[in-house]
C-alpha cells in the first residue's frame, strides 16, 4: 500500500531508511518540513542549527565522526553554507553526507530564484534531481550510498513543487549503516594549502569516476516515444514535458544531472530528429548539451523557447513549444495531414487543450498576507511609519511592515542584513549630512538575529556606528511556521533547551544602551525609540512579546469593541491594519472571534471609543 507523501517527507523517510543518524538544518521554505519530519524518527539526532553554515559544518563533522548525516536548507541558505560546502568537497566524507537544497522557482516565499544546480558544478559535487516523491525517497537513499562509495558529499536538489507536492510513495525498512572507525586523516581533513593542492586533484579524479557512474546510473534513463522529438529534462520540468507531449516525444530523463552523462546524451540525441531541453530557471542542462558540440539535423532549442524566469507549468511549456514544433515540421507535430496554419495541435498529448486561449483572469481585490490579530510586530511598525528615519529591514513575518498602510521599510536584502546594512546606511548619512541627526533603525527578528544579525551588531559596536537596532523578539521563528530557536527555550525535539539571553548577549557584544519594551504598549515603544535617537551611539531595543499564534505563551484577553456612540468615524484605527477590524457602512466593527485583545487599536483611538468588551458592556448596564 502506497502512502501519499510530500517530497520533503519522502526525503526524510529515504534518509531514515538509509540509516541516517544525524540531521541538521536551519528552517526555510520550501525545505523546512524535511527536518520537522526527521524529528519524528527516534533513531536520528535531529537539530535546528542557528544558520545554514553551522548546520552544514555540524553535518560534515558528524559524517567524519562516523554517522550518516543529512543537512537541509532552502536555496539561499546554501549561499550562507557555501564556505563549508566547497571545503567539504575537498575533505570528502567518512559516513555518507547528503545536502538538500530546496529551490524556489517563482519566489513563492523567497527573495530570489537562484538555480542551485550551479553549486554542484562549482563545488564539484554529484547532483541528484528527483521529480516526484517516490524519486525523492529513492534518490535520498541512493545519495548516501554514492556519498560513501565516491567519498563525496552529495547535493540533492528539489524545487517547491517537488518539496511540497504530494504523490504516492512505497516505503521500505531502515537499514543501519556502518562506517569505518574514525582515524585522524590530516592529509584529507586539515585543509591547509599543502593538503588542499593534492585534494583538488583528487576531486577532479573523483568527478571523472562520477561521470562514468552517471552514464549508467538507473537515475538517468531514456524513455522512448516518437523519435521525431527528443526532450532532455530533469526534476519537475520533466513532468510538465510528459504532461504536454506524452508519447509524442522521447525523453532523456536525468535524475543525476551533474556530472553530465555525455555519452548517454550523445547516444540519445543521435537517435532523435530534434532536441528540446525543458528545464526551469537557468540553462544548466542546455549548456551541457551544447558543450557536446553535436551536429544534429535540427538546432537544439532550450531557453530560446522556455522562459528563463519564473516557475513553469504545463501550459507555459505547451505554449512555449507549440510554435517551434509547428515551424520545424511545417505542420504541428503529431498531426499527420493538417495544413500548417490549422493550429490543430490536439493530438499531441494535452498540448492542444493546454495551449487554447482560455478564460481571462477575473480582476478582484488582492489578498496579500498581513500581520495576524495580536501580532507583536504591528505596534512597532505603526510607530516606525510615523518617524522620519531610514528603516533597514530584514526577512521574517515583520517584512510585512513594508506593506500598506505601514510602508515602514527602506530595504529587505537577505537574512541578517538589516544591522550591517543599517550600519552602512548610517555611515553614509554621517558622511553626507554631518551634524544632522538623521538616523537609521534596523529591525530584525529573534531567529534572524541569532542566524546572522549578531555579527552585524558586533560590527556596529566595534566601529561605533550609531545604528539603532530593534530586535523583534516574538519568542519563535514564526514566518516559516513556528520553529524553535536558541531564544525560545525549546529544541526541535520539543525538549527544553538552554535559552540564550538576548539582553546579556547584546551587552556582551558591546552595546551599552539596551532597552526592553512591551511591543503591545505603543507609548513604551515610542519612548524607547526617542531615547535611542537622543543618543549618538549604537543601541538596541528588544521588543519582547510573543507571536499571537504561539499557544504556549498565549494570554487570554477580552476582545475589544467599538463604542459607536462616541466613535467619530475618523477611521484612524484602520491604520493598524488588523484583520479583526472592518468597516461596515460608516462604522468600524471589531470581530469578536478574531480579536485577541492586544489593544493596539484602542491606543490609536483619540476618542477613547475602543474599549475591552467587559468595560464597554459595563457602561451600558
Amino acid at each position, binding site marked *: 500500500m*502506497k*502512502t*501519499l507523501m510530500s517530497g520533503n517527507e519522502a526525503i526524510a523517510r529515504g534518509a531514515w531508511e538509509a540509516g541516517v543518524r544525524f540531521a541538521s538544518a536551519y528552517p526555510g*521554505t*520550501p525545505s523546512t518540513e524535511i527536518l520537522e519530519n526527521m524529528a519524528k524518527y527516534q533513531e536520528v539526532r535531529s537539530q535546528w542549527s542557528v544558520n545554514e553554515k553551522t548546520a552544514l559544518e555540524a553535518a560534515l563533522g558528524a559524517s567524519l565522526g562516523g554517522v550518516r548525516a543529512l543537512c537541509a536548507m532552502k536555496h539561499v541558505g546554501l549561499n550562507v553554507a557555501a564556505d563549508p560546502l566547497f571545503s567539504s568537497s575537498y575533505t570528502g566524507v567518512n559516513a555518507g553526507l547528503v545536502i538538500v537544497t530546496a529551490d524556489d522557482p517563482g519566489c*513563492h*516565499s523567497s527573495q530570489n530564484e537562484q538555480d542551485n544546480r550551479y553549486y554542484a558544478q562549482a563545488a564539484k559535487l554529484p547532483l541528484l534531481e528527483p521529480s*516526484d516523491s517516490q524519486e525523492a525517497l529513492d534518490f535520498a537513499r541512493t545519495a548516501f550510498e554514492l556519498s560513501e562509495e565516491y567519498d563525496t558529499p552529495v547535493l540533492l536538489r528539489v524545487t*517547491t*513543487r*517537488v518539496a*511540497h*507536492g*504530494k*504523490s*504516492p510513495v512505497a516505503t521500505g525498512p531502515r537499514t543501519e549503516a556502518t562506517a569505518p572507525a574514525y582515524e585522524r586523516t590530516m592529509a584529507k581533513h586539515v585543509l591547509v594549502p599543502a593538503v588542499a593542492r593534492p585534494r583538488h586533484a583528487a576531486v577532479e579524479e573523483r568527478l571523472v569516476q562520477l561521470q562514468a557512474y552517471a552514464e549508467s546510473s538507473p537515475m538517468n534513463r531514456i524513455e522512448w516515444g516518437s523519435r521525431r522529438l527528443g526532450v532532455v529534462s530533469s526534476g*519537475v520540468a520533466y*513532468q*510538465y514535458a*510528459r*504532461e504536454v507531449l*506524452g508519447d509524442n516525444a522521447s525523453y532523456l530523463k536525468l535524475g543525476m544531472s551533474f556530472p553530465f552523462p555525455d555519452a548517454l546524451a550523445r547516444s540519445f540525441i543521435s537517435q532523435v530528429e530534434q532536441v528540446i531541453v525543458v528545464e526551469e530557471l537557468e540553462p544548466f542542462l542546455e549548456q551541457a548539451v551544447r558543450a557536446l558540440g553535436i551536429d544534429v539535423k535540427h538546432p537544439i532549442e532550450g531557453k530560446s523557447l522556455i522562459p528563463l524566469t519564473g516557475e513553469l*507549468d*504545463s*501550459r*507555459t511549456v*505547451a505554449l512555449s513549444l507549440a510554435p517551434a514544433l509547428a515551424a520545424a515540421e511545417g505542420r504541428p507535430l503529431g498531426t499527420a495531414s493538417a495544413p500548417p496554419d490549422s493550429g490543430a495541435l490536439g493530438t499531441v*498529448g*494535452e498540448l492542444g*487543450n*493546454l495551449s*487554447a486561449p*482560455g*478564460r*481571462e*483572469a*477575473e480582476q*478582484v*481585490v*488582492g*489578498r*496579500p*498576507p*498581513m*500581520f*495576524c490579530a495580536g501580532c507583536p510586530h504591528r505596534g512597532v511598525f505603526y510607530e516606525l511609519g510615523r518617524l522620519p528615519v531610514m528603516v533597514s529591514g530584514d526577512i521574517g*513575518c515583520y517584512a*510585512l511592515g513594508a506593506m*500598506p*498602510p505601514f510602508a515602514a521599510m527602506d530595504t529587505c536584502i537577505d537574512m541578517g542584513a538589516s544591522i550591517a546594512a543599517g550600519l552602512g546606511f548610517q555611515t553614509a548619512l554621517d558622511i553626507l549630512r554631518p551634524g544632522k541627526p538623521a538616523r537609521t533603525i534596523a529591525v530584525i527578528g529573534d531567529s534572524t538575529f541569532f542566524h546572522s544579525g549578531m555579527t552585524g551588531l558586533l560590527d556596529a559596536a566595534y566601529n561605533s556606528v550609531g545604528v539603532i537596532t530593534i530586535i523583534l523578539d516574538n519568542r519563535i521563528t514564526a514566518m516559516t*511556521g513556528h520553529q524553535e530557536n536558541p531564544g525560545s527555550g525549546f529544541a526541535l525535539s520539543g525538549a527544553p533547551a538552554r535559552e540564550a539571553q538576548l539582553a546579556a548577549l547584546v551587552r556582551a557584544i558591546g552595546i551599552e544602551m539596551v532597552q526592553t519594551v512591551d511591543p503591545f504598549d505603543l507609548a513604551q515603544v515610542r519612548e524607547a525609540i526617542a531615547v535611542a535617537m537622543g543618543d549618538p551611539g549604537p543601541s538596541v531595543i528588544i521588543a519582547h512579546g510573543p507571536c499571537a*499564534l504561539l499557544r504556549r505563551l498565549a494570554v487570554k484577553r477580552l476582545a475589544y469593541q467599538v463604542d459607536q456612540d462616541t466613535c467619530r468615524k475618523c477611521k484612524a484605527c*484602520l*491604520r493598524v*491594519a*488588523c*484583520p479583526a*477590524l*472592518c*468597516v461596515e457602512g460608516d462604522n468600524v466593527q471589531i470581530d469578536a472571534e478574531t480579536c485577541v485583545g492586544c489593544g493596539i487599536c484602542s491606543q490609536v483611538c483619540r476618542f477613547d471609543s475602543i474599549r475591552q468588551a467587559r468595560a464597554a458592556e459595563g457602561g451600558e448596564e
Partner: protein
Amino acid sequence: MSETTNAMLVGVGGQGTILASRVLAQLLLDAGFDVKMSEVHGMAQRGGSVTTHVRFGRRVAAPTISPGQAHFILAFECMEAARHSHYLREDGVIIANTRRIPSLPILIGREAYPDDIANRLAGRGVDVRWLDASAVAAGLGNVRVENTVLLGAFSTFLAFPEDAWKQALRTVIPAKHIELNLAAFAAGRRLTQQ
C-alpha cells in the same frame, strides 16, 4: 493524458482547505488512482489566498493544474472563486461558498468588497453553484466545519460511493471530531443532491 481529472481547492488561510484536500486525496488513493497534490505553504497563516491542486487518473505527470485545465474548483470564499475562475475548463464547474472574507485593502478602507461577483461570473458563462456552507456549518454548531460541508457538496460531482468518502474522512479526521464532520459532510451532500 486527458483522462486526468483536475480539482482545485481555493480559499483563505485558516479555512481548512488543506484538511479538505487531504480527505479528497485519501479517497483517491483508496480508490487506486495515481494522485498528485500541490499546495504552496508559506504565508498561508497570515491571511493570504491558499490554493491546493489535486489531480488524479491512471498516471498523473504534472503536479499542478494550469489555467484552463480544472474540471472543478471548490471555492471556500466568494472573491477567491472569481480570482481563480480562469483555471476552469470551458465545461468545468465551480462549487462556491457565498462567504465573504475581506482582505487587507478592504480592511484598511482602500477598496470595497466587490458586490457583483456572481453576476460577473454568470455574465461570462462560468458555471457556478453557490451555496452557503458557513450557515450550514453554523447550524451544526461549529463554523469551522464549513470545509467538510463544502467537501460534501463537491462529493456529488464525483462518481464515488458515499461510503468511500466516509471512510476517507475517518482516516484523516481525528476521532474526537469525526461525528461532527460526518454530519457536516452529509449536510453538504444534501445541498447539491437533487
